[in-house]
């Protein structure tokens, strides 16, 4: 959250100084987004460690996180490498496209991981309310962006609406996590089965 705050302030400063359509703002925006996506992925890994701590599986969670991060980076590089000719690969443009691709791919990896984590919480009958709130809000956050992106691709004529929604969705996670840390005490307990739909 602190990194996101710093990045947002820096982005605003860059936009004010260089302009919205400037190359400097674009480069800074996409590079900072890649860093923030990696930090979000690491935050998700820490949530996994919290959930699987009682099973003494933290070591395997950390190993899995490293393998997943490395695999995503390798896959992204392979995709970008294919698209550039030998002469273009020596330029700095391939690195920028690689950073862009990693950010996009890591986002979808985080989306899948969040849903798997929620399934694990239900299966393990995790009761820590704050942890449940953090994971649920992360799932909603990822899903909102994915839905916005998908609808934007399906209905490009309504792009103005989805462009406005993007920054609004960006405010959701800080507010949800601030609520979780401010209003929910550490010792609060909640049965996740109450949140799951039970067949009748």
């Amino acid at each position, binding site marked *: 959250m602190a990194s996101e705050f710093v990045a947002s302030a820096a982005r605003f400063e860059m936009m004010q100084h260089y302009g919205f359509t400037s190359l400097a703002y674009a480069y800074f925006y996409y590079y900072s987004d890649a860093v923030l996506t990696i930090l*979000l992925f690491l935050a998700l890994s820490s949530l996994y460690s919290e959930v699987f701590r009682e099973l003494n599986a933290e070591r395997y969670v950390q190993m899995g996180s490293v393998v997943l991060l490395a695999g995503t980076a390798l896959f992204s590089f392979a995709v970008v490498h294919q698209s550039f000719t030998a002469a273009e690969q020596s330029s700095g443009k391939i690195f920028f496209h690689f950073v862009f691709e990693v950010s996009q791919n890591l*986002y*979808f990896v985080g989306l899948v*991981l969040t849903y798997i984590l929620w399934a694990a919480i239900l299966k393990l009958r995790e009761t820590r309310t704050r942890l449940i709130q953090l994971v649920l809000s992360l799932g909603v956050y990822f899903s909102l962006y994915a839905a916005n992106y998908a609808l934007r691709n399906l209905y490009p004529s309504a*792009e103005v609406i989805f462009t406005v929604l993007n920054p609004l969705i960006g405010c959701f996670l800080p507010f949800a996590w601030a609520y979780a840390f401010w209003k929910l005490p550490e010792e609060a307990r909640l049965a996740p089965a109450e949140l799951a739909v039970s067949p009748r």
Partner: protein
Amino acid sequence: MSKQLAVIAASMFILVGAMGLKSAVTSKDSGAVLLANGSAPTPPTPKEWRRNGSAPTPPTPKDWRRNGSAPTPPTPKDWK
């Protein structure tokens, strides 16, 4: 050893699933960029910099539209 291999296999499975999901979501690509951090306005992507239409063309990044001996690199839209 088997647990480590299971972790690696699970990670690869998750990666394949995520990339499949990405392919499904981006099947109808309109050049939009998926970004998930912060509320700052998204700058135009390389594809949008090269788009022609009724709207005034924003300043184009010189590197992406350079003509000469080096071929123009593909934009994210062209990769699809």
